[in-house]
């Protein structure tokens, strides 16, 4: 895939070119190739923690089978935005959404009051900042989502567990120790276990909330590779602190600041020819 390759080029090599970036470059989606179909989009999404407005009118598309990265300084609302997609905010009192997140192809508004957050979470799964395997066996960790869905068929479970662990590139390492406790694994393995867990239920979108921030560089590389692999099957939204990571894994990038979406475009456009001055400042490290 073209975008994939472009995303992998070193952003540093282009940093010097930023000065020559054309102001008012092409609008998103009208590039060399046709825009991929939409999987979801947020429409004028605002979000309140109590009286604090954490997101302001965020409208952003999410393209199917692509990796979309959310970047921005700490507290910019990127995690808050991500957690809207599977309504994690519903777990805590005093939170309020305004606007919509529409999931295609059925045009369901994920945030609508009559949509059950549990159903949303069954379609949109999530991998967290720190690996959080349950205090159960590796097998049960992966089977958890299926069991929650009432799957009892042992063959189906076995099959799905293996498939997911393979999908998360963990199968070869744990094949013979499926009954061991998940927390015995190394940090990188734990995170891949969590990815397998999120994968087992065939989600439509997977959310990654800074999935490598607690991992060492080698484990980080393996997770990044895995994410690039996974997008063949599922649409991915990833929050990251690390701009190189965004450049390496994503096809589209959104730069957020103070709860607003400053700029959204193809990753290479954001990194090499950003239209907004703020984005450029952030990318080149002049900011924060």
């Amino acid at each position, binding site marked *: 895939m073209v975008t994939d390759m472009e995303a992998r080029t070193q952003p540093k090599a282009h940093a010097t070119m930023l000065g020559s970036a054309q102001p008012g470059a092409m609008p998103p989606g009208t590039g060399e190739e046709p825009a991929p179909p939409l999987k979801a989009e947020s429409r004028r999404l605002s979000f309140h923690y109590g009286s604090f407005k954490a997101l302001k009118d965020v409208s952003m598309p999410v393209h199917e089978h692509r990796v979309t990265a959310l970047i921005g300084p700490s507290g910019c609302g990127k995690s808050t935005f991500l957690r809207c997609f599977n309504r994690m905010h519903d777990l805590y009192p005093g939170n309020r959404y305004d606007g919509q997140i529409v999931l295609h192809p059925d045009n369901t508004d994920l945030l609508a009051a009559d949509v059950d957050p549990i159903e949303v979470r069954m*379609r949109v799964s999530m991998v967290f900042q720190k690996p959080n395997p349950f205090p159960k066996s590796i097998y049960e960790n992966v089977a958890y989502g299926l069991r929650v869905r009432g799957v009892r068929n042992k063959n189906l479970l076995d099959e799905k567990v293996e498939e997911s662990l393979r999908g998360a590139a963990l199968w070869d390492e744990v094949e013979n120790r499926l009954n061991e406790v998940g927390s015995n694994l190394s940090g990188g393995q734990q995170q891949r276990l969590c990815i397998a867990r999120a994968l087992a239920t065939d989600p439509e979108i997977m959310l990654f909330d800074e999935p490598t921030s607690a991992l060492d560089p080698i484990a980080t590389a393996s997770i990044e590779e895995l994410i690039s692999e996974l997008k063949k099957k599922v649409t991915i939204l990833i929050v990251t602190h690390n701009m190189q990571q965004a450049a390496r894994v994503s096809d589209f990038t959104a730069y957020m600041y103070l709860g607003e979406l400053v700029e959204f475009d193809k990753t290479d456009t954001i990194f090499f020819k950003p239209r907004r001055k703020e984005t450029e400042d952030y990318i080149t490290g002049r900011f924060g």
Partner: protein
Amino acid sequence: MSAIAPSRTEVRRLIVRARRLDVLFVALGIVALGIGFATFVALFLDMLIDGWSRLRPEFFTQFPSRRAGQAGILSAWVGTLLVMIVTACVAVPLGVAAGIYLEEYAPKNWVTDLIEINITNLAGVPSIVYGLLALGLFVYAFGLGQSVQTAGLTLALLILPVVIVATREAIRSIPGMIREGAYAVGATRWQTVKDHIIPYSTPGILTGVIIGMSRAIGETAPIITIGALTFIAFLPPPPVTGDFPFLSFEWLSAPFTVMPIQMFNWTSRPDPAFHANAAAAGTILVFMTLAMNALAIWLRFRLRKNIKW
């Protein structure tokens, strides 16, 4: 995607079922809490109704009697009061001192570990075992007799872990910068403790003392074990006398009874007329312990609200 799409209605049905279980469990939780509260209400009302006829002023001013209608709790409440005075005088200084030692002085070594293990363990020793300790040690070995002082000492040992733990928690919540501030102006360790640690931790310590005392008030088993009498128709000698030196400590070695023992005595009589007395005494006991506990809870609540370091 497609894997789930065809069964979306099925998924919805599943969610509805799972949610129904959630609601069911909430109901179960409320019922469980309700059973606890209902028991308490039933207990209180039952005693109040049974004992209402006896809850008259005379009940407090009469000695126990062979006739239920004339029996009162004079010797019992006076006994409780005196025992509590001894308990407080022993448990509070000892417990607070021990708490201060463990938080502010204790080095990290095996002696400290030994003390800590002992405190944790003593908190779990059944109260009747303290009674046996007191019987063997205070009554017979030390010859303190079956007296107010023996009971007071026994209950003091019993509530000591409560006071120590409360003291330690109160001290631990004082941030280190307070200590550093005091040391920085040249205070010694004891000056720091005396001028800062103790005053700032007083409300927390007080909470623990009140809870400990409310437990001591209701303790029956250890006091029975040391052989407290159940029928006492006289009061201990008064602490203040007309002659020089005007103070007398004879009451310390006087025989006594306390409220819970009086209640036990009346409860275990077959004649139901005495049960009314027991209920009346029980109502007063519950009221006292409730009031003390409520005071402690309120103190703790205020503490959490007011103090912002």
